[in-house]
């Protein structure tokens, strides 16, 4: 059974075609890496999966647990169990992290144990001091990432899309986030798509499979460890040449 199937997806933003015939899938409970250089279209892909209206699907399909969700509005996809941790979340003035999380969970009908769960996850991710701050206002890069991961954990998603959780994060915190992802996301049975261009997080989270996206298309798919190793050693550019990929 697949948690996610992206089938031949072509996507444009503001009239510009960004993704070309992308296909990718994630089996239930799998951890999948999506690698690729800056500007290759990784964020575009996850924004399209979650249903951000800015990204227009020209052709192709997105299937979640067997259901075609290509035309579903964003909030409906989220309520079905997809969660996206933003690469660069916006700041929202006057809205406290704690209040947003409580509101988000109440909306899903959860009323019990919100506070205790929030405290638990916040302390795991070392973000207790941020709960009563306005969301992302004055947060450091690493703090933003940890709060995004906190929001994802609190949603208890079936499919977690983690966009660059490791970029701009120091070594200790990557290890910390890796541990939390392993124990509380992967460990709870969620399927996970981890986007990274540095592959740092791959040191801590064992992935089943990896994709490499270049210039809006998937150029390689295979064993995560091998792909990560090749990329870390040769970089994307060399890697493309060595494998004979065409741009």
């Amino acid at each position, binding site marked *: 059974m697949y948690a996610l199937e992206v089938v031949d997806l072509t996507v444009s933003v503001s009239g510009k075609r960004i993704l070309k015939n992308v296909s990718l899938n994630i089996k239930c409970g799998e951890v999948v890496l999506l690698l690729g250089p800056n500007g290759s279209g990784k964020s575009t892909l996850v924004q399209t999966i979650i249903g951000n209206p800015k990204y227009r699907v020209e052709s192709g399909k997105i299937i979640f647990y067997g259901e075609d969700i290509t035309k579903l509005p964003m909030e409906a996809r989220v309520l079905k169990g997809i969660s996206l941790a933003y690469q660069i979340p916006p700041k929202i003035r*006057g809205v406290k992290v704690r209040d947003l999380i409580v509101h988000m969970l109440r909306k*899903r009908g959860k009323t019990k144990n919100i506070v205790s769960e929030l405290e638990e996850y916040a302390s795991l991710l070392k973000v207790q001091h941020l709960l009563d701050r306005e969301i992302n206002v004055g947060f450091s890069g690493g703090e933003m990432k940890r709060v995004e991961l906190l929001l994802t954990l609190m949603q208890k998603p079936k499919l977690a899309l983690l966009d660059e959780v490791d970029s701009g994060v120091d070594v200790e915190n990557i290890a910390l986030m890796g541990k939390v992802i392993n124990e509380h996301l992967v460990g709870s049975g969620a399927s996970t798509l981890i986007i990274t261009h540095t592959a740092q997080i791959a040191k801590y989270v064992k992935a089943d499979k990896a994709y490499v996206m270049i210039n809006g298309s998937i150029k390689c798919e295979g064993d995560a460890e091998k792909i990560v190793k090749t990329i870390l050693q040769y970089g994307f550019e060399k890697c493309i040449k060595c494998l004979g990929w065409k741009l």
Partner: protein
Amino acid sequence: MNTLSKSRELFKERARKALTKKSTYGPDIDLEPYIRKHLESSSLETLNIRDPKIQTRLESVGVDVSETGRSGSYYQVDWKIISYYSRIPGVKVLTLEDALENYWDVIKDYFWKAIPVDRDKYTATVELYGRGGYVILVDDGVKVENPIQTCLLMYTRNILQAPHNIIVLGDNAELHVITGCTFLKEPSGIHLSVSEFYVGKGSKLTFTMIHGWGLQQHIRPRTGVIVEDEGEFISHYIVLSPPGTLQTYPTVKLRGRDSKAYISSVSVGLNTSIMDIGAEIILEGRRSIGEIVSRSLGRDKSTITARSRIVGLGRESKGHIECMGLLLSDSAVIEAVPQLSAQTDDVELTHEASIGRIAEDEIYYLMSKGFTYEEAKSIIVRGFMSIEVKGIPKTLRNMIENVINIVSSKL
């Protein structure tokens, strides 16, 4: 003639000369018809303040109708004083007339001292035709925990309401005042008010004002505040529903060393309302600190001008202005006018201002957390309106949160 009537005559003399003097800011209002009506009608329509409908309106502007959480209160409808009392020894809640009559020796140092009677035709009208207004006197060393609430309500059609309010805190005193102003039946008439606040040495006054008006109303409050050494003045003004026109420009003079002022306002512009909401802080005292924060929300064809001015005179004084506008419609206009003036070289004055519409990316971000477009928008609007005012009691903060929640959900 005793000294009261002598001084009063002098004030009235000056006022008469200013009766045609327009305000520097805001649309000019012809007061003639209102004054004429005021002089003609002597009787008021009767009203029952305990009427559930009226109580709901009072609650909408933050009034605790049960009064359990209040240290005292003052109710005025049109120009008629309904009730007033204080539960706290060392704190007097009086009417202006009562205070002038019986406490002139105290009042004479504060009456038209923070605002000149001939500032403009509105202050002049208050002196010549005004009635009522609360006077709150707090003795040295008295710290009042629960707020005192004052309610200035408008009931009769095309009424002129023109109270003169005075609050005097002695030294090392503390007082929280919550003022709710609204119409009870017909949203028409003119509300002019003069408020003179005096904060003694080491004292703290917080003033929360919530206004809910209607389009046939015109509002011209005039406020002057003087703060002595180590005194602190905190004010939070919320306009939940706008009048036809409103113009106000409270001036806080931080006269004492180490004195502080924080003035914030949240205004919601709807329909064709025109609001000109300003504030000025004069940093006179050494190491005085002033901050002005405003949030303007423009919908429909409303116009909001947010003025703020900080003048640095005292050595080592500091001031900051934060002025933000959010446009919810193409036809609304928001204008921000922050002004800083430094008159010695070791003051530190800064400002930040921004006006824009809701960023789409913020809406999509919230939608990616499971909210609908409308929910996301209302979360952002509510966040925009919720300024965290430090230093006011929790009960007031909760009350403010409630009214903001209700208003933002309707925008």
